[in-house]
């Protein structure tokens, strides 16, 4: 019986402990902080869509760039007008009189 009395005394002492009067304020502050955080969080799918759209634009740019054909031909052609060419025979003679 004495043990039970000691236990009851112990429990009675603990029950008399009162919480900090500002505990309610502290919890409400935490709740309000949570509410503000909820507004700022971006849904994950929005992030995925945003990244995917950037990748798509870059890919499209590269594809468009690769498909461009330069109209100017790279080959070199020589148009020689035979009537205006000097007689090369002149350069092979020893004298040009």
């Amino acid at each position: 019986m004495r043990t039970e009395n000691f236990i009851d005394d112990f429990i009675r002492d603990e029950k008399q402990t009162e919480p900090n009067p500002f505990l309610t304020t502290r919890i409400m502050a935490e709740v309000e902080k949570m509410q503000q955080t909820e507004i700022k969080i971006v849904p994950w799918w929005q992030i995925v869509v945003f990244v995917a759209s950037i990748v798509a634009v870059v890919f499209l740019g590269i594809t468009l760039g690769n498909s461009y054909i330069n109209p100017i031909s790279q080959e070199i052609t020589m148009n020689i007008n035979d009537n205006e060419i000097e007689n090369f025979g002149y350069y092979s003679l020893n004298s040009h009189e």
Partner: protein
Amino acid sequence: MAEEQLIQEIVSGNTLAFKTLMEKYQERVFHVAMGFVHLKEDAEDLTQEVFIKVYQSLSTFNHDSEFSTWLYRITINTCINFVNRNRKKRVLQSIEDVWQSAFNQYDKEKTPLEKLITSERNLLIKKAIDSLSEKQRSAFILSKYEELPQKEIAAIMNTTEGAVEQLLQRAKNNLQKKLNRP
């Protein structure tokens, strides 16, 4: 405001309604937490944790049981998780408390020796309560700290009244065995 209406308001985002609900149940949650942790600061932290959980999950409360039953369940689970997480730290804290309360200068009614004897006895009682199994401890705290009837304890612990009676009897026997050991 009726409790159901209060809950509806909270789910709609009315924080003032949540404050009203919290003020109604704060002391009960605090006392249950004290039963588990025996320290005012830890009990306050637990009370905060419980009410944050309540706020976050209130929309999932489907009124299958009383709100107080649901709240006690969250409290018990949160306290058990806390105790399991902080087992080592709490042993050292308890020893420190014995010395602190033994040399408490504000208690003029007892001599230092009486204070030391009371502190050591309280430490033994705390250890004995803490050594009970989770179910026995939960039933014991709900019965002794909150003075809840066995029917309500059974609803909280999701068991029968007979099982609660057995748990309380075993808890009482275990405590006596541990505290009467020479």
